[in-house]
């Protein structure tokens, strides 16, 4: 790695003692000797294993659930259904007032995605739990699923999630989060070229080496200690407290080093049901996703569809950018309304464009609920923006790197969401890239600065 100190040297104090030093990682000795403690590196006598019975359908009504055979299976300690969960309806961001509650801890009336949790089985061994889970009988009436953003937004589409009453999230701004700046139609009218393109992505899994999970131990004083690999201790505690209708002081979350997160361990999907199981049985409970569950059941990065329409001048200036973005939330909100909102704030990218219109939708389908993942709301948007930018440069016959210099934002420029740019450094990154990648650009671009405009 090259630490390039020549840029912005006057804005930095480089005479610090500890900051800037390559101190060894405090956890590295544990990692290389195998002694780092992860949540599952503990043993508990009498540990019960939780296995989840999951929906085999994208969308179905539950007519009945019969757990009687499963309960009789040797080694089974308890079978848990929706009626056992004190506050079965929840949504994780309710803590910061992003509602409505739209998801069941265990399915009640309907299942809305293939893999949704329906019944939890607790047994002495994982094998006994598997065997008993196979004996749970769920009678489903299969419903038409909604499997794409386009289908979800059709006027006659089946409703995926009745708690929203429509197949998109309703913001205070309406059916989407909007950003309006300048006059995009006027911009298109003056443009030399218009380019409208559509970009898409597939869900992406975090694939951490350690799957999501927790072990809950009931304590003698009536509290529950939950050893968990959550990325957010109090997020988990507070949501568990609401779901279980249990005061927070009854709960004790213990984390440690997490075996990779990437956003996949921000959802609160394992802890509440495991704590409930420990409460109902009085025994320690382990609920750890299998690799298959981690891959297909834990929420992925959302599939997205992004339509970008640009107006560009022959001299390289982008004069209008209209973005319509759709984030496929799957069946439940989790963090997707937040993600779609973050996308609205991120467009039109790190460029100064005088006329911008953004519509960012959070859409519900009968897909695995999507949620947080490294850069969500931005990562796929950046793919779309930067491929589009490349297309614009080629459309007017300009070098793609030089084209970006022309449009790059600089300190003082007003962004589309009406914040003045501060602390920009895109131009300097491109200057350094020009050098290290041997991609020469015109001298005037090498003289540019993010700190202001020449004229």
């Amino acid at each position, binding site marked *: 790695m090259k630490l390039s100190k020549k840029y912005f040297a006057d804005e930095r104090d480089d005479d610090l003692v500890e900051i800037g030093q390559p101190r*060894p*990682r405090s*956890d*590295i*000795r*544990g*990692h*290389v*000797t*195998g*002694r*780092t*403690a*992860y949540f*599952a*590196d503990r*043993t508990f006598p009498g540990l019960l294993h939780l296995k989840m019975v999951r929906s085999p359908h994208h969308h179905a009504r539950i007519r009945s659930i019969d757990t009687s055979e499963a309960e009789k299976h040797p080694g089974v300690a308890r079978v848990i259904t929706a009626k056992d969960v004190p506050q079965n309806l929840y949504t994780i961001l309710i803590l910061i007032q992003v509602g409505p509650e739209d998801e069941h801890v265990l399915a009640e009336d309907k299942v809305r995605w293939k893999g949704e949790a329906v019944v939890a089985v607790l047994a002495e*061994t994982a*094998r006994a739990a598997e065997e008993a889970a196979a004996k749970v009988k769920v009678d489903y009436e299969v419903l038409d699923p909604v499997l794409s953003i386009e289908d979800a937004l059709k006027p006659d589409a089946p409703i995926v999630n009745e708690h929203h009453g429509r197949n998109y999230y309703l913001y205070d701004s309406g059916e989407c989060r909007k950003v309006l700046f300048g006059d995009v139609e006027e911009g298109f009218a003056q443009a030399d070229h218009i380019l409208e393109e559509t970009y898409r992505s597939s869900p992406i899994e*975090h*694939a*951490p*080496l*350690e*799957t999501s999970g927790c072990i809950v131990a009931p304590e003698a004083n009536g509290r529950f200690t939950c050893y968990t690999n959550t990325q957010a201790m109090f997020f988990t505690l507070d949501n568990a407290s609401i779901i279980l209708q249990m005061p927070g002081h009854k709960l004790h979350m213990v984390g440690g*080093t*997490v*075996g*990779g*997160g*990437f956003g996949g361990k921000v959802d609160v999907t394992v802890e509440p049901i495991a704590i409930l199981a420990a409460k109902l049985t009085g025994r320690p409970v382990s609920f750890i996703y*299998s*690799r298959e569950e981690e891959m297909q059941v834990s929420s992925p990065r959302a599939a997205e569809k992004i339509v970008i329409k640009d107006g560009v001048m022959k001299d390289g200036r982008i004069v209008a950018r209209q973005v319509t973005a759709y984030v496929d939330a799957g069946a439940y909100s989790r963090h997707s309304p937040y993600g779609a909102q973050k996308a609205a704030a991120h467009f039109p990218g790190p460029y100064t464009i005088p006329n911008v219109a953004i519509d960012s939708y959070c859409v519900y389908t009968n897909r695995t609920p999507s949620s947080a993942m490294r850069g969500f709301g931005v990562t796929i948007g950046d793919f779309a923006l930067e491929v589009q930018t490349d297309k614009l440069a080629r459309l007017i016959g300009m070098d793609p790197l030089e084209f970006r210099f022309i449009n790059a934002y600089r300190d003082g420029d007003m962004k589309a969401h009406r914040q003045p740019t501060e602390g920009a450094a895109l131009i300097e990154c491109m200057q350094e890239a020009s050098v290290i990648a041997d991609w020469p650009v015109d001298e005037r671009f090498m003289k540019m600065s993010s700190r202001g405009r020449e004229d």
Partner: protein
Amino acid sequence: MAKIPVQFTLNGSERAEFVESGTTLLAALRDKMGDTSPKGGCHQGTCGACTVMVDGELRLSCLTMAETCNGAHIRTTAGLANGEVLHPLQRAFENGFAAQCGFCTPGMIMAAAALLERNPNPSRDDVVEAISGNICRCTGYEPIIQAVLSAARANSTSAA
């Protein structure tokens, strides 16, 4: 359920436990013998986090039945260091910042140790092949490859 005796040498110590028939070596090591250095990343044989050595050969402990290891010599990352003196691979992983979350590290180090025991002067391709059964989601592999090569160099220097 009848319990089955398992008895083997773990990192030089004689160990014996009773396990349920059908228990994997990974479960026996972690739950019965207190060696949690092998990690259960997939239980499918596709991630390598549970890699150990059985009689000098790399094995996936999640796919190995514990009772098939009776009488064997089993080595795990927990037994690599000689007291406080780290194995050259452990030193190289530390110095090279070759671990982030650390969950793949014990298995990765066992895979690398098996390579260096057979081939003290591996090429980059040899290292790539040796760790190919071990998934890492954090580092992008390059620091790990460099650490293994550097451990090999350190070894050959100290031998010379």
